[in-house]
């Protein structure tokens, strides 16, 4: 037996009373059965880390629930005993969101994986937390329907992505995946089962959160700290048969922003995304490598879908107008032939190739983190230039993506940073650079999404006191004993 590692020592401090451990496990077994809960080290270990720079930490127990009633019973028990609960679906986020800050029970929801309903007439689906993008894509396609599939593993959870304000490939058209949520069923930290949206009024009506007060906001963007969402209704959309992707390049971010803003005004794209040269590289250069002088710095793909040839022609005409206008402005815009494989990666979602994070496995360590933000589009340019300085100074590549959300006012702005997780020094270097980038973005009006605790702290430093006070009060109201994913909000 080896000496206790730092991880083990950390864990040892979370359990001080061996008798308590046994009694907790006994209770958990009563709730979910012996095969669905454990305190075994090797099982807990597999939940102690993710792709990100967040330091590994062990939960004390892992529990898998199969029914809503079990979730309720578990939360009642945890609330009574004041044991932290960390909801988990697939663990595919890159913000350490399911790495327990204070031990406790990791609640793995993968067995709750039913597609409860698909209403092809109303374009609504009702799903449980364990439903993966792969499973939903398979089921929806039978009705020729689609959803905003993200650039992530097909095994990732649709529900977790949506309630965490994740984005998908239809974000230019429909906005964030959280904006597609039409109703919710939630177990509160105290064990009560509640519903918000239309399903609260009639149990089988999952079509809309409006016009009721938007109480769904109490569970979206809270990082699993306000309850366990056990079902959501989502809008799903018909699949138009014709796909056309317009691709351009520019020499600088300002020119790219100008083009994206112009094209966004027509609101005709499913997805409007630009990536810096470094993000087009497989792998993303690590450490930093200078871009060749003869290569443009930015590439953009505007994905459009149409029902008829005429519609596609009309969209092409609009795009050509935009392109000509940008040329007339004297920008560096050029039409670009995007590599076929790269285009497939952007349009054939969910994708194993994209989801498999090939970009990040070159070096042993295979770590991935990001400053991932929602940032006003008009500051993308200046923020990118500052990020570039910070990242290059840390010997990291400015592998940045900008995606325009529905409308023109803001979008996703993020950098994907590979690093070697085997090296504490390199991990810290990446963390430091990312947090520095984040501060720049926050100061420019951006806000990080799916934030690790480091980010949450930076958000809160800048937050209006009234906002923070309300946040604390709401948290206290919903979760009086602070059992739900404690520590993640940094409050």
């Amino acid at each position: 037996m080896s000496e206790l590692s730092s991880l083990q020592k950390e864990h040892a401090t979370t359990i001080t009373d061996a008798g308590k451990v046994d009694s907790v496990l006994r209770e958990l077994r009563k709730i979910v059965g012996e095969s669905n809960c454990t305190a075994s080290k090797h099982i807990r270990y597999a939940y102690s880390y993710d792709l990100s720079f967040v330091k590994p930490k062990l939960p004390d127990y892992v529990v898998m629930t199969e029914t809503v009633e079990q979730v309720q019973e578990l939360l009642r028990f945890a609330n009574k005993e004041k044991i932290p609960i960390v909801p988990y679906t697939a663990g595919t986020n890159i913000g350490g969101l399911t790495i327990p800050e204070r031990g406790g029970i990791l609640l793995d929801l993968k067995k709750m994986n039913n597609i409860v309903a698909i209403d092809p007439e109303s374009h609504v689906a009702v799903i449980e937390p364990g439903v993966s993008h792969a499973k939903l894509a398979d089921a929806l396609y039978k009705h020729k329907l689609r959803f905003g599939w993200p650039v992530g593993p097909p095994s990732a959870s649709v529900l977790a992505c949506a309630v965490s304000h994740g984005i998908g490939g239809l974000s230019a058209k429909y906005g964030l995946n959280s904006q597609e949520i039409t109703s919710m069923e939630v177990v509160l930290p105290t064990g009560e089962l509640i519903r918000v949206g239309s399903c609260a009024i009639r149990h089988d009506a999952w079509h809309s959160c409006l016009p009721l007060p938007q109480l769904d906001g109490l569970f979206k963007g809270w990082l699993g700290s306000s309850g366990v969402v056990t079902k959501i209704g989502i809008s799903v959309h018909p699949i138009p048969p014709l796909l056309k992707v317009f691709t351009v390049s520019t020499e600088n971010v300002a020119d790219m922003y100008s083009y994206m803003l112009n094209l966004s005004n027509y609101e005709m794209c499913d997805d409007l995304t630009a990536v810096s040269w470094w993000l087009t590289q497989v792998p993303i250069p690590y450490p930093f490598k200078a871009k060749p002088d003869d290569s443009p710095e930015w590439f953009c793909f505007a994905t459009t879908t149409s029902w008829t040839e005429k519609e596609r022609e009309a969209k092409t005409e609009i795009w050509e107008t935009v392109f000509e206008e940008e040329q007339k402005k004297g920008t560096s815009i050029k039409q670009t032939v995007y590599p076929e494989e790269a285009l497939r990666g952007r349009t054939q979602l969910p994708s194993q190739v994209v989801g498999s994070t090939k970009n990040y496995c070159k070096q042993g360590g295979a770590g991935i983190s990001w400053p991932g933000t929602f940032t006003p589009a008009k500051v993308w340019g200046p923020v990118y230039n500052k990020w570039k300085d910070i990242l290059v100074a840390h010997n990291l590549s400015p592998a940045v993506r900008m995606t325009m959300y529905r409308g023109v006012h803001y979008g996703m702005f993020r950098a994907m940073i590979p690093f070697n997780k085997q090296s504490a020094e390199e991990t810290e270097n990446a963390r430091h650079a990312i947090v520095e980038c984040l501060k720049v973005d926050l100061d420019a009006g951006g806000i990080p999404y799916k934030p690790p605790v480091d980010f949450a702290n930076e958000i809160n430093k800048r937050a209006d006191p009234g906002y923070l006070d309300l946040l604390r009060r709401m948290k206290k109201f919903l979760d009086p004993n602070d059992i739900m994913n404690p520590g993640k909000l940094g409050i």
Partner: protein
Amino acid sequence: MEWKIAELKELEDKIWRCTACGTCKVAYDYGPPPTFGEICPAGAEFGFEGFMASKGKIAFARGILSGELPWDEEFLEAIYKCTVCAGCQNQCELDHKPYIPEIIEAMRRRAVADGVGPMPLHKNLLQSMKNYNNPYQGPRRVRTDWTRPFKKAGKPIKDLNKEAAPVFFFVGCTGAFNTAARAVPTATASIFQKLGMDFGILGENEICCGSTAMRVGDSEEFKRVATKNLETFKWLHDERGVKTIISSCAGCYRAIKKDYSLSSEYDKVMEGIEVIHTADYLNRLYKEGKLKFEGELHWKVTYHDPCHTGRHLNKFIIDEEGKQLWKGAYVDVDQSECLYEQPRDLLKAIPGVELVEMKRNRANSFCCGGGGGVMTGFGEWAAKNASLRIQEGADVGAERIVSICPFCHFNLNEGAKRIGSQVKVHDLTELIDQVLVGKSDNQT
């Protein structure tokens, strides 16, 4: 003879190329139409992330290497609760993809080296190999029991210990000792006789291929039998004129084709010898117009791809020198040696047979649950998993499930019994034997 069998530590760089993205956890294909299915038998059964696909196993490997996961009974069991089916490997796109089954087996080798592995029931199996040269605790004499009907019918099978023949039928232990699976060698030999092939067996002198020992982490026992077999193959080639080794067992076939290639002498020993699975061999004859079928089998069948004749035969293209992508990059997979179409082509050729596909097929076939030592170590779970596969066949309307592996054959049968399914399980050779026209009209 030197063997290149990696220790866990040697695979550390590969282990750290896993990002933990979890793409490996479900079978998925974009299509269109997109298809989804559970792919990890252990993940489907036990659920916790550690059991789940490559992502979970890599976590275990990292914990072992870092010393954070010391051995205990439960952890050891978790290492062995994996069918090493490579279903997860088929989903992954990262640089450690080509090494995933090897990483899992290297953990087991580490457990054996540390004196804690394998599982108690595996130890019985390995002791049997040492005592009897087979994992079934069967006396050598029993190895030829399946040949009795041939002797009785006045059609004895040639004994290569005494006579020469160009074809060596490597029967395998499961077909020889497992009563329920004896239909496999019996049908195979019957087909060969009908085709007038000049073939022989080693009878009591055949020894285990070593696949099971390798799968459960006992590389020393594997090396012992594999070395002996390679020596025998050379002797058969030099002294008995053997040019072709045919196996009806997916496990033996995989071991001889792939595991034996880890020997420094493999290319030299196997020069002039082709190793081929019966299904591939028969399909070749069929394509040449040398199989003639008579009568009809009005059966609605589905085909179960054994892992060992499917994705385990993938050849991975790796950029070892960093000329194409980067050093050690996984570039692509070559599936040309996987036996996906050959058995299907034969099934479709049998008059009357209607072939329907299960949702999970070919590279995304769902393991029967018997591989990786699971059938021996955790028989109940193996049968339970097989019942899922049986049900999948029933769900597409199949009356019979056909495969080309005696291990799958046995386990799928157990699965059918477990749920009282009416779906019957057959080896492909059984179907062919029923409709194949005899020697008088055929020359191979």
